[in-house]
């Protein structure tokens, strides 16, 4: 199973490093990253494997969202199926 971690907010130094570190702490393996700056906003989308998480998936969701608030960013963790179902036929 894979989840999409999306990070949106004001650009700054070390966002990618910080979020990756947080993923590594719970054994969330990053399999793909896409990052861009849109109208001075930092937008990053990570695809992570969640099968071997050290913690419950739902607490991973909470941890990442809370961490986003600490950094002043909006972080969402959502199961990849929602995007697949909405955007593919």
């Amino acid at each position, binding site marked *: 199973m894979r989840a999409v971690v*999306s990070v949106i907010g004001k650009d700054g130094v070390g966002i990618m490093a910080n979020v990756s570190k947080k993923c590594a702490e719970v054994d969330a393996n990053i399999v793909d990253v896409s990052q861009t700056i849109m109208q001075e906003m930092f937008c990053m989308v990570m695809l992570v494997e969640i099968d071997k998480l050290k913690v419950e998936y739902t607490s991973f969701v909470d941890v990442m969202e809370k961490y986003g608030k600490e950094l002043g960013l909006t972080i*969402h963790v959502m199961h990849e199926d929602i995007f697949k179902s909405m955007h593919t036929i």
Partner: protein
Amino acid sequence: MLNVNNILETIKMIDEEDLDVRTITMGISLLDCADSDIDKSCEKIYNKITEKAKHLVAVGEQIEKEYGIPIINKRISVTPISMLVAVSGGDPVKYAHTLEKCAQAVGVNFIGGFSALVQKGCAAGDRELMEAIPRALAETEHVCASVNVGSTKAGINMNAVELMGRVVKEAAELTKDRNCIGAAKLVVFCNAPEDNPFMAGAFHGIGEPDCVLHVGVSGPGVVRAALAKAPKDLPMDQIADIIKKTAFKITRMGQMVGAIASQRLNVPFGIVDLSLAPTPAVGDSVAYILEEMGLDSCGAYGTTACLAMLNDAVKKGGVMASSSVGGLSGAFIPVSEDAGMIAAVRNGTLSLEKLEAMTAVCSVGLDMVVLPGDTTADVISGIIADEAAIGMVNSKTTAVRAIPAIGKKVGDELEFGGLLGSGPVMNINQTSCNVMIQRKGKIPAPIQSLKN
């Protein structure tokens, strides 16, 4: 890898445009709970509902968390209670109290099915149930009631129309110190669907399986946002295309949530109701969609045409996205739940007559309309009869959820709070239709009924 723009689009829909799954509704048959002893019947109902729905709320919340998609309501619909009253006799309000206990025990937002289907006439239990509705709604918080008074096949039962005018008025009077909330939990239908997940009109039809899970999607804000990006000179057919594409995405999400929820609850998946259901949140409004199409205000000439196209495009987009579409499916136009409708009533552009015209092309009918408190029961029956006639002739569902604001007059407001919103008391035509309503009897089924 998934397309980043698609991911950001979905996140924006949820965060900024109020995309949500409006409800997951578990339909539960109570036919096997009927007993000639009303207390035994109530006990069986309590046991069955609390067993079947014990995980409903928890599973809903789990899916919300995992997929990041809000599921606003978890609800239950049950077999029309009039059928159980037919077997047991006794005071139907006892059943309402049992349903209320069930709702509180499993933690759902609403439970629907304090209902009777009387389009062709009253059988045992029907009249008792209808007369008990005002008390049932006043003495409970989560129970919703509905009565089907007409259908294209059967015509309109004018005895029931006459009675329901009085029932609506009494439901409001018994709850006048609580913003007449009783009448807001009561719907009078023509052509009521048996698999509707939306309240207050949900009930579990007798053709349905023992237990089933329906999903109602929403998303007026998403459609509005998509139309806002369209240039002002884009032809109407291309506007329809944008609506179709958006409805497809919304429905796919509902389909996915429904499939997962039914699997986890081990209950068959029923239908996706692809409705645009507004909320009082600014932006999450069907009226704003119509205005985005190019009307200065909802209620202007052109409103009915825009709504007809919207309703049709939502269905066309949604139907391919789901394996099983049902319920009401289309655009709702509840006045008090829609910021744009409320504004249009306040500024005088949206009248009850225009709303009535809109109900000929929307998915339901006159919904959450606040009437002056001194409106007579006959006038309310007249409104019900007109709506039922539109539904009967057009082979569509129509309904009336009107709230007489006891003690208030035109220009005052009723505050329901939550998803029910607040509504200004509308100025309506109070001309008497007493003689016509008191004739009672029935309006015969129209020629459209002879399809065989």
